[in-house]
Structures are given as structure tokens and as C-alpha cells.
């Protein structure tokens, strides 16, 4: 463990390009990731809006896309899922906030490898450009879903968009994998090697723990997806047969032989399930940080929280088969995967109870960041409860590929993670931009988004149980789903309102950036290291000083302390414990 000026070999840059474009400063790179994800989330949200509108008004002619054909719907769905999972849920919580605040929270002047950090962002950026390019090539975007199941994804004549569009899709994912591996390497090295004096592992803020474990998951998972993607590209373009068996497409026998579509599923989900935790763990870290700070109480069970994060990360690698219960796997294998999946409920419940235990009896300050943290916990519980349903093979058989699954994962990994990002944005905005966001509009945004989110995704569980399949572009012809159409229309209205309400957030964000009231260095009276430095932090984070840490991260309401909180750098004698 060491920190020194040596890491900060790069001086503060002066020119615009070195300062804002090809910056080595982790704070600028964090903001770059954040704004990339902000663009991506609006692209992804627009696609989902088109889908929802099409579901209930299938013949409507929509802006930019015209009338949506079934294959167009699949293309929208594929791109919505891919952009959201990779370029929003993976990019903003880890690349954005992790990059900006992990070094500051551990008392380091920068990431361990600043050049690698810059390369990591720009590689992600290239991956984003490549995936957007898939919209504009002949045939358009691919239609094989974000999971890219072979042989559909492995044959270029299997459908519209499966020509160049699919190649671009895989290439983008492969580039993204490389970027994420670079990022993970940097996060892990930084956490292990650059902590300030006194910042032991058990004094790390839970946000840092979450980013650290997320990076480990990324390190182990993205390499596997990269391999899988390379095999897919070879199958598509060079005639190999890793995933493609003997198949006939449109009456034509393809040249492949003997490949296994299930091989793709295994490799993909070995990445895919940890990816769920890559998306959600940073949100858990933020929720822990905020729940403690705004309840003015130490986090309930700090060590239990740390071990729960580790357990979730570890178990996350053991359960990929629960996505494949319907693939014809042996019931014994399914049983093992089912059992491991249920086991994740234990650390998840520990975290949930600890959040509630922290809030209980606290002097809670219901400011916007805290509202979003509570919203996160709420969505995590609501989405999490349907997990054990899907973890049972016997229940998964009827529920598989229905709207129930869509409701489940949107609540727990989609919007819960988004709520984590909102919480983080409202919480750290003053530190990042030196101004406060508007509190009133923050609350309005919260109320509409929370209610809207539940209105969109809760009914999906009913739809799924009633047998409404996912990935179908329209249901208006299906007699057995007619009684569900009002519910579908309600969800679409809710989606329109909720998505429109996000404009409040964007306006608040940019308005406050320039016009918001000036923020003090520690507006939330929080204890971690980012709040001891100036707002916004100087180039080397602590203005030439190296912080020395004497306290844990959540010392609120300490008996005998002069204030209701003890900064991590306060002298050791300030509190009695």
C-alpha cells in the first residue's frame, strides 16, 4: 500500500484537447464515461418507446422508422438491450462514477495507469460508434437480441440485419470487452496499490468495495465474452463450425457441420450473469453510502456488507445455467444451478436488511439523493423477489420467454441500477461541478420516475403469468391476450410519461451545472475523502497533500465527537472509538 506523487507523473494539462478530450485525469475520464452513457441511455430509451408504442398501435407510422415490421421490432429490441446493458449499465456506474470517485475516496492522486484509463474510455467510445453504425448499413441492425443466440446470430443469411449489421454488433462487443478489461485492470491495481496511509481495506467506503468487486467480475467475465465473440465472427465469416450445426436456411444447406448452439449459450451466460452484478453492484455501493450518510448513522453491519458483496460476486459466477433451463440441460444440472441461484438470496437479503437497519431509528434527511437510494432499495427488493420464482426450473418452464422475465430483470438490473446512477448523480453533482442541483425538481423527477417505473414494469409480471411472450412484435391478433390489451396500453402511457419526465432530469442537470447555487466542499456533511478536498477537486485531487486516514467511512452520530460526523481524516483522538 502506498501513495505518492510518483503516480501523478502527468502535470495538469493546459490545452483544450489534452484537458478535455484526450485527458489522463481520472475525473475528466469519469465525466466522459458519464456523458457517453447519458447519450446512450437516451438512444436506448427512444428505442424502447418505439417498441412500446408499436405493441399497442401496431400499424402506427412512427418518426424515423416509419411503420414497424416484425423484423424492425426485433432490431429495436436488440439494439435497446445491447446499448442499455453495455453502454449504460456497465459504462456509467463503473466507468463514470467509479473512475471519478474511486481514486479520491481512497486518497490517491489518480488511477494507477492513467494512459490505460484514457485508452479504455476511447476504446469504449469506438465500440459505441461501431454499434450505432449497425443502424445505417445495408439490412440495418441485427435482430438476434442482446444475447445473440446462435445459429441465428452466426449465419449472415438468417434474417435482415444479420449481414454487416451483425458483424458490427459483434465487433462492437469485442471492442467493448477489451475496453472493460483495461478498465478492470486499472480499478483493481488502483484499489490494491494506491490507498492512502491508514486506508485499510476495512476502512474503504462501500462504494469502493463495490467498484473493486465489480472490476474483478469484469476481469474474469469479459475475457470469456471476447473469446465467444471471436468464435462467432469466425463462424460467420470464415466458415468454421463452433456454434452452427448442419442447418438448412431458406431451403439451402449451409456449409457448417457439428457446431453447438449451446456452446454459445454457455460462454455467453458465463459472462452474462456476472454482467448482471457488474451493473447492480455499484448501485449497491452507492445505496449503502447514501443510506448511511442521510440517516446520520453508521452503516449497519459494515463487515457483513463487505462479505455480502464478495459472496454475491462469487456466486454470480456459479449460476449462469439458470438462463438455460429450457435448453434441454439435465435436471440434475438444473437443480445445481437452481440451488446456487437461490443461495444468492442470502447475501442479497443481508444487504437489504442492513440498509433497512441503517435507516431504522436514524435522523433521516429526505433529500433527493436519499430518495433515490431508497428507491434503489425498493426496486431491488421488488425485482429481487421474482428472482426465486425464475430460479425454479419447474416455474421457469411456464415463465421462460414471457413478459414476466422482462419485468423481473428490468426492475432489478435495469431501473434499480439507473436509480443507483440517479442517486449518485444527485449526491456527487456538487463535487463534480461545484454547484447544487435543484432540490424541488429533483423530488418531482423522483416521484414521477418511481411511480412511472412501477407502472411500466409491475404489470409485466401479470402479462407473463398470463402467457404473453416476450420478443413478439404484436399481440393484437392473439385472442387469448385480448383482455390484456388495456394493461398493455396503460404500460405504454406510463412509459411515455416516465420517459418524458427524464427531460426534467436533463434540464436540471445542465441548468444546475451553470446556474445552480454554489456548493460548499461538504454539502451533505459526509465523511469520506472526496468531501475533504476542494469543490471541484484540483487536478491531483488533494492539492499536493496526501490524506492520512484515521477512521472508518461511516462514523456518524459518534458519542463524544464535536459534530455528528467524523471525517475519515480527522485526528484519531476525536472520537472515543
Amino acid at each position, binding site marked *: 500500500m*502506498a*501513495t*505518492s*506523487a*510518483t*503516480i501523478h*507523473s502527468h502535470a495538469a494539462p493546459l490545452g483544450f484537447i489534452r484537458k478535455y478530450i484526450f485527458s489522463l485525469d481520472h475525473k475528466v475520464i469519469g465525466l466522459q464515461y458519464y456523458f457517453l452513457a447519458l447519450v446512450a441511455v437516451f438512444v436506448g430509451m427512444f428505442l424502447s418507446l418505439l417498441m412500446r408504442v408499436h405493441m399497442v398501435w401496431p400499424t402506427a407510422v412512427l418518426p424515423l422508422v416509419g411503420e414497424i415490421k416484425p423484423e424492425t421490432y426485433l432490431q429495436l429490441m436488440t439494439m435497446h438491450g445491447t446499448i442499455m446493458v453495455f453502454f449504460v449499465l456497465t459504462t456509467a456506474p463503473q466507468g463514470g462514477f467509479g473512475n471519478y470517485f474511486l481514486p479520491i475516496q481512497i486518497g490517491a492522486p489518480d488511477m*494507477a*495507469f492513467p494512459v490505460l484509463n484514457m485508452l479504455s474510455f476511447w476504446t469504449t467510445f469506438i465500440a459505441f460508434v461501431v454499434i450505432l453504425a449497425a443502424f445505417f448499413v445495408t439490412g440495418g441492425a441485427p435482430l438476434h437480441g442482446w444475447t445473440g443466440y446462435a445459429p441465428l446470430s452466426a449465419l449472415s443469411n438468417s434474417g435482415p440485419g444479420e449481414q454487416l449489421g451483425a458483424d458490427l454488433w459483434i465487433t462492437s462487443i469485442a471492442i467493448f470487452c477489451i475496453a472493460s*478489461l483495461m478498465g*478492470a*485492470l*486499472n480499478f*483493481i*491495481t488502483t484499489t*490494491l*496499490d*494506491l490507498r492512502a496511509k491508514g486506508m485499510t481495506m476495512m476502512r474503504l467506503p462501500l462504494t469502493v468495495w463495490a467498484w473493486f468487486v465489480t472490476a474483478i467480475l469484469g*476481469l*474474469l*467475465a*469479459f*475475457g*470469456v465474452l*471476447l*473469446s*465467444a465473440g*471471436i*468464435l462467432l465472427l*469466425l463462424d460467420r465469416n*470464415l*466458415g*468454421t*463450425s*463452433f456454434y452452427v*450445426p*448442419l442447418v438448412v436456411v431458406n431451403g439451402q*444447406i449451409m*456449409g457448417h*457441420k*457439428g*457446431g*453447438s448452439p449451446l*456452446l454459445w449459450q*454457455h*460462454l455467453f451466460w*458465463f459472462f452474462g450473469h456476472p454482467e448482471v452484478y457488474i451493473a447492480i453492484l455499484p448501485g449497491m455501493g452507492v445505496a449503502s453510502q447514501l443510506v448511511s450518510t442521510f440517516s446520520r448513522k453508521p452503516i449497519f453491519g459494515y463487515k457483513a456488507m463487505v462479505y455480502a458483496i464478495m459472496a454475491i460476486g462469487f456466486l454470480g459466477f456459479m449460476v449462469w445455467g439458470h438462463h438455460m433451463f429450457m435448453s434441454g440441460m439435465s435436471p440434475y444440472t438444473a437443480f445445481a444451478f437452481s440451488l446456487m441461484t437461490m443461495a444468492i438470496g442470502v447475501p442479497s437479503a443481508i444487504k437489504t436488511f442492513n440498509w433497512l437497519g441503517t435507516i431504522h431509528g436514524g435522523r433521516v434527511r429526505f433529500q433527493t439523493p436519499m430518495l433515490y437510494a431508497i428507491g434503489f432499495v425498493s426496486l431491488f427488493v421488488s425485482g429481487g423477489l421474482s428472482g426465486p420464482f425464475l430460479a425454479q426450473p419447474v416455474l421457469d418452464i411456464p415463465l421462460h420467454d414471457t413478459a414476466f422475465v422482462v419485468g423481473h430483470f428490468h426492475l432489478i438490473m435495469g431501473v434499480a441500477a439507473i436509480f443507483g446512477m440517479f442517486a449518485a448523480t444527485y449526491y456527487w453533482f456538487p463535487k463534480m461541478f461545484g454547484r447544487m442541483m435543484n432540490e424541488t425538481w429533483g423530488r418531482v423527477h423522483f416521484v414521477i420516475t418511481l411511480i412511472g417505473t412501477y407502472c411500466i414494469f409491475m404489470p409485466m409480471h401479470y402479462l407473463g403469468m398470463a402467457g404473453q411472450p416476450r420478443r413478439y412484435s404484436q399481440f393484437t391478433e392473439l385472442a387469448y391476450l385480448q383482455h390484456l390489451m388495456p394493461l398493455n396500453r396503460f404500460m405504454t402511457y406510463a412509459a411515455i410519461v416516465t420517459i418524458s419526465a427524464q427531460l426534467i432530469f436533463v434540464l436540471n442537470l445542465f441548468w444546475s451545472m451553470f446556474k445552480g447555487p454554489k456548493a460548499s466542499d461538504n454539502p451533505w456533511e459526509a465523511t469520506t475523502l472526496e468531501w475533504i478536498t476542494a469543490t471541484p477537486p484540483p487536478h491531483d485531487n488533494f492539492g499536493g497533500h496526501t490524506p492520512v486516514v484515521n477512521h472508518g467511512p461511516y462514523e456518524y452520530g459518534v458519542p463524544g465527537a464535536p459534530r455528528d460526523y467524523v471525517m475519515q481524516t480527522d485526528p484519531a483522538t476525536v472520537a472515543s472509538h
Partner: protein
Amino acid sequence: MATLSSPVSIDVAKTGQGGGGVRPPAYGGGGDGRGDGSPDYGARLRRLRLGLAIGLTSVTMIFVSLTSAYVVRRGLPTLDERTNTYVRDWIPVDLPITLLLVNTTLLLVSSIAAELARRQITRQAALAPIRSIPGVSLGEGKGFPWLGTTVVLGGGFLVGQWMAWRELADRGFYLATSASSSFVYLLTATHAVHLAGGILVLLYASAVSLLHTPVEARRVVVDVTAWYWHFMFLLWLYIFGLLWFVR
């Protein structure tokens, strides 16, 4: 200003692969910063070695997943459309074993050369503070160009692998001939790409030596690349063993 100080051991966890029994390098103060504003190469070395170990974990995962795919694909039966029965379509690849053994030897020798280059520059870096004292001469002499030897032998290995691919093609095994040949090309190519990356870094290390970069800085690059190189050798042994014994 650099001062004469007795070399102090840095307490560094050995993170590289292979080449067991090598002492940790001896240089620097081992602590946080040296107090004179000059870069702390000891800390930089430790950080890069840690980064390397973490990076190699992800490289390992890539090969673990390819191995899994190899084993699964090898065991799969294939539908034969003429007889409508399931048959095994895995054709053992007729590897050019002599050529591959020569390549293996080349890579082994280059790994030894990389280790000698690493030790050579470690010595030079340890002596750098003494050499900077006016009037002190330690008997100049560049020593054997181990770094260059490593690059040349590594390049030789890549050429040898390319020849092996040509040989495979002559024997009728192309990328798409059979799943077995697909894996031979895939595994060797993935390894070659990683090795080529190592060569680029070594060329960079050689190039910066012409630019009066402090020997301590070069030493950090050479050290980490040498460990990477050893890993690449062990990885090749593993791949070779897989392709040969599990063919």
C-alpha cells in the same frame, strides 16, 4: 541530486509466472517517494507487476474459455445427413510436430534471453546512482544485447508458427476443414497475437534506450515485459500440450 546509498531490498510480492528463484530487484528506497522529487521507480515497478498479474488473469480467462469450448466441441456428435445417424466429426490434426518443437525451443531460448536481459538491466539500474557521481567509473560496457536477442528469437517463433500454418495447409488442414483444425489455428493465432504485443513492448523498450530515458525507467518496462514473456512461454507449452495430447 542522487545520493550514494546502499541498495535496499524492496518487499515485492513476486507476481510473474515462471523463472522461479529470482531475487526481487534491489534498488530504491522502497517507501513512498524519495523526497527529492525524482520518480519512485520502486513503486512504479511494484504497480506495474501487480497490473501485469491482474492483466494475465484476464488472458488466462480467455484461454480457459477457449479450452472449455475445445473440450465441449471435441466431445459433440454430429448428425450425418446421409445415414441420418450421429457420428463423431473430430478429425485429429496431423500437426507438424518437428517444426513445432523447433519453435518451442526458439521460444524457450528467447525466454531465457528475456530473463538475462531483465537481470542485466536490473544490475545497471542498481548501479545508476553510483555511475551518476562525477568521476566514478564502473568500466563502461553495454554487455550482450539480450533484449535484441529476445526480440529476434520471438520474431523467429512467430515466423516458425506461420510456417507451421503453411505446413498444415499443405497437409489439407485449413481453418474450416474440421473443428479440430479450427481450434489449432485459433489457439495458435490468439497466442501469436499476445506474443506480438510483447514484441512491440520490447521494441519500445529498445527504442527508448536510444532516447536517454533513465535506465531505471527502462528497467521497469523490461522487467514487466520479461515476466510477460515467461508467461507467454508457459502458455505456449500449455497450448502445445493441449493440441498434442488431446488431439
